[in-house]
């Protein structure tokens, strides 16, 4: 059917400075991305990408950002992300860069990817951990995430079983 198709870019803001991530604001970030697209792709790029552009999700603690753009011009947005080198907030400049983790057609696929990605990141953190207290905390969150994974898998199989029963009846 006729509808506007979007692409959702899941990105991670990587920076050495911890204050950089905490000072993330969706409006500031949206403006920064638009300016960068205007610089890299000119008037044409700025106009093409700004129609369906929005910052959909922002996590200040992990630095995860979900950007939405139109399907026809998502490559212009994607190619402009590596040109963002600093984040400016209240006169302070923090050097940073954007890592694109996933490109999805819907928010749901990006969410699924993010959950798997976070689980893998927890395990990596556990390996690189030095402090014993931190290690305990990470082990707890890993076990909790495994339980949640089992629960959601059971829910899915239960609902599938119920559906099968309904069809048979």
């Amino acid at each position, binding site marked *: 059917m006729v509808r506007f198709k979007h692409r959702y870019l899941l990105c991670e803001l990587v920076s050495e400075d911890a204050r950089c991530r905490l000072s993330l604001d969706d409006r500031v970030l949206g403006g920064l991305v638009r300016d960068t*697209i*205007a*610089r*890299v*792709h*000119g*008037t*044409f*790029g700025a106009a093409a990408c700004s129609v369906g552009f929005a910052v959909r999700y922002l996590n200040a603690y992990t630095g995860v950002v979900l950007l939405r753009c139109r399907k026809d011009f998502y490559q212009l947005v994607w*190619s402009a992300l590596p*040109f963002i080198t600093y984040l400016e907030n209240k006169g302070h400049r923090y050097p940073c860069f954007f890592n694109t983790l996933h490109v999805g057609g819907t928010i749901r696929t990006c969410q699924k990817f993010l959950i798997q990605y976070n689980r893998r990141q927890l395990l990596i953190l556990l390996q690189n951990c030095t402090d014993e207290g931190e290690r305990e905390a990470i082990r707890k969150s890993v076990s909790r995430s495994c339980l949640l994974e089992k629960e959601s898998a059971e829910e899915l199989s239960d609902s599938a079983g119920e559906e099968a029963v309904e069809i048979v009846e």
Partner: protein
Amino acid sequence: MREAVRLAGRSGFQTAGKVEGTPCLKMPATAYERLVYKSPSEYHYMKVCLEFQEHGVGLNTAQFKQLLVSALKDLFGEVGAALPVDILTYEEKTLSAILRVCSSGLAKLWSSLTLFGTYKNKKCAFRVIQVSPFLLALSGNSREQVLG
């Protein structure tokens, strides 16, 4: 679409510059090789003329190139400004030039020339006289032909 039949040398099809390799087979010396070009040529040639509203504005070749790059940069940004455009000839008296651009970049160049309005606060316009994928076609223009 033109097909060119050549004796064996390179293998595979060539579509718009990309070579799709066939699995490595040693071709015998008498085998034929088929090259398929999807477009007539890789480059497009444009004959353009720059017109200013006032008279007496002079530009040398470097300034003209700078003008082209800034026109591309306005409309298409850094990526557009990096488009490889060559000035093959330039006449300072008439401010006319022959440009060469990759076929994929023709639309970008032409649209940025169309929307270029001012140079150092002086109004100007690009007149595109001829566009052709072959340089030879630019040597004769049937519009300027004088009959009789």
